[in-house]
């Protein structure tokens, strides 16, 4: 009995495999090949870039130094209820004395004390002092012995702190990064007024980034328009003036601004020479926000001009001519016809400049002084000077969150595939 197979199933390749199967195989093969080509870079970036970022995320919550140093105490402190006004039982004091002795001998007490000091300023010296003297405690009652070393051991706040931070992870770095802390009762509360610095700093960073972005847009738009409308020969020549700063070392440009802006610098000398300011009244343009804004606007301006230019290049000049011949005056024609056509470029350039500005470190560090520093400078400071790596990591993660949200927005508006360089 002969059956007639559907035409597609009947078609086979030379070696007898159905065409459908063969095509699927070929597709799978080329997909595998494409993946294989990308794989080396993916693996490389995972090790050199992604894992470091994840490590930073982890450092923002990591707390192993406390349970590792106070092994005995963290094991038994769960028996005590931190909500009562009573002090912990003798067994916990005994465990603490044991931990203090061991940690002092192995010299690991210092880092644990510093870690707990971030949460409760002042406990560092208490731990150091008690560690030194704990060796003399031979036998119980341990509670009285510790109280004799320092009365602070009779305050529930210290035991609440140990109870709360006995785990391997902590939320206190992230709380500190948004100006919050645990209060005496262990509830989350705002930091006292004089210690609230990070939210204000984030605010300043965002504000300065907005100012720089707006300045870049105001300066970049006319230049991009000129470049897009001039004949190609002239605009290519002028383009060099945009590309040369773009390609010049960041430190070279920052150095130039130092030479220009400092009190004994070129601009002040010029102003004194012309007689606008007196020799004693030289302007302070560096080591403040003015320095940061001027230098960063200069450095980031090419990142605004280039995307604007590439969008403006695609707008046919006939649009404006049509608007004019339909009776619009130049201003109306610009606002109603030209400007809406450049919105994509404005969005792309602004987000790019904003993303770059918000994470800037070098230029503010050199010309920003006290009032012109950004969140990055504090992160760097916590890593290399105060050594509070947990707080640095938590601040970094918050900054990263802002930038990734903007990156996502950029991807939605412009598309990463459309990113162009040079």
């Amino acid at each position: 009995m002969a059956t007639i197979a559907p035409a597609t199933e009947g078609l086979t390749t030379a070696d007898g495999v159905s065409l459908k199967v063969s095509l699927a195989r070929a597709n799978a093969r080329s997909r595998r090949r494409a993946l294989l080509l990308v794989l080396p870079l993916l693996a490389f970036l995972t090790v050199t870039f992604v894992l470091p970022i994840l490590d930073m995320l982890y450092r923002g919550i990591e707390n192993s130094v406390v349970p590792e140093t106070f092994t005995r105490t963290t094991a038994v402190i769960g028996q005590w209820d931190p909500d009562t006004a009573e002090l912990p039982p003798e067994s916990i004091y005994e465990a603490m004395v044991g931990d203090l002795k061991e940690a002092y001998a192995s010299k690991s007490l210092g880092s644990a004390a510093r870690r707990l000091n971030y949460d409760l300023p002042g406990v560092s010296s208490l731990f150091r002092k008690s560690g030194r003297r704990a060796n003399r405690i031979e036998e119980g009652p341990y509670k009285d012995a510790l109280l004799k070393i320092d009365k602070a051991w009779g305050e529930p706040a210290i035991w609440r702190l140990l109870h709360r931070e006995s785990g391997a992870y902590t939320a206190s770095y992230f709380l500190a990064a948004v100006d919050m802390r645990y209060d005496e009762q262990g509830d989350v509360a705002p930091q006292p007024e004089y210690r609230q610095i990070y939210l204000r700093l984030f605010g300043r960073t965002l504000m300065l980034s907005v100012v720089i972005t707006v300045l870049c847009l105001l300066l970049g738009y006319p230049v991009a328009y000129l470049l897009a409308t001039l004949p190609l020969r002239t605009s290519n020549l002028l383009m060099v003036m945009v590309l040369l700063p773009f390609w010049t070392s960041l430190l070279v440009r920052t150095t130039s601004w130092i030479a220009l802006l400092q009190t004994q610098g070129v601009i002040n000398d010029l102003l004194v020479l012309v007689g606008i300011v007196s020799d004693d009244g030289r302007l302070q343009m560096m080591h403040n926000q003015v320095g940061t804004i001027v230098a960063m606007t200069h450095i980031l301006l090419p990142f605004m001009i280039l995307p604007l230019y590439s969008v403006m290049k695609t707008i046919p000049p006939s649009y404006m001519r049509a608007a004019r011949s339909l009776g619009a005056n130049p201003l109306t024609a610009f606002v109603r016809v030209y400007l809406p056509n450049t919105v994509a470029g404005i969005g792309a350039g602004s987000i790019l400049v904003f993303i770059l500005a918000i994470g800037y470190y070098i230029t503010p560090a050199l010309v920003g002084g006290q009032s012109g520093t950004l969140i990055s400078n504090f992160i760097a400071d916590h890593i290399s000077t105060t050594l509070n790596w947990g707080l640095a990591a938590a601040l970094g993660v918050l900054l990263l969150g802002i930038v990734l949200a903007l990156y996502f927005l950029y991807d939605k508006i412009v598309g990463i595939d459309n990113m162009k360089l040079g």
Partner: protein
Amino acid sequence: MALPLHASPLERVWYYTFRGICAAIFAFLIGPIFVILPLSFNAEPYFTFTPEMLSFDPAGYSLRWYEDFWTDINWRLAVKNSIIIAVASTLLSTSLGTLAALGLSQSNMPFRSSMMALLISPMIVPLIISAAGMYFFYSRIGLASTHLGVILAHAALGTPFVVITVTATLVGFDRSLIRAAHNLGANATTTFFKVIVPLILPGVISGALFAFITSFDEVVVVLFVGSVEQRTIPWAMFSGIREQISPTILAVATLLVLLSVMLLTTLELLRRRSERLRGMSPG
């Protein structure tokens, strides 16, 4: 944008005002870079023009800061380190980035856009965050304060530029050329080196230049991942500006401006070649 003959007086005024504004902005862009060129020939250890310089007195000018740069052992070490690190990381990021771009531009690449977003991210993540993360992680695995650590870090920062430029070149790439090569008996390797590479070479080279300048100009990651042993030119400039400010930095800066002029010229020539190859009119 020539001024039309029928322009009204108001339009004429605006036309010249607009040109004036643009000229001022161009001056703002380029002025600071050129200010340091004459300053680097200052005979005095100042960061500004001395009266002798302004009156064009030859005594006001000297090459002492260039001499200083040339003879100082620390600057020499910085130049050597910069070149070693930049060349090694460029080779690494260019080879990995080009392969990845070839894979990404295949039509049936799975998860294309999310993969692209991940590969571009080293360019987007603020340098201070990359630097902090690398410092934490590289200390764990013993790569901190080594040349290798800095090279790997810089290579990671440079790959997005290579991926972007090579992918852009591949957009205009005629895939039938590959089939034609296969048809004429070339195997995959021959096709790659004889057909694909020559065509995408301009993109690869400009990507490599971007990667090179990224590493050569990078300071935040070196400051954290590296130590004095790995001091590069930007490292030395940064600490120089912070500690004792000397016009030697201006001399170095002038040399770096010359380097960027050379790079810019190379890129422009490459762009023209690429457009010619793809049959577009030279810009």
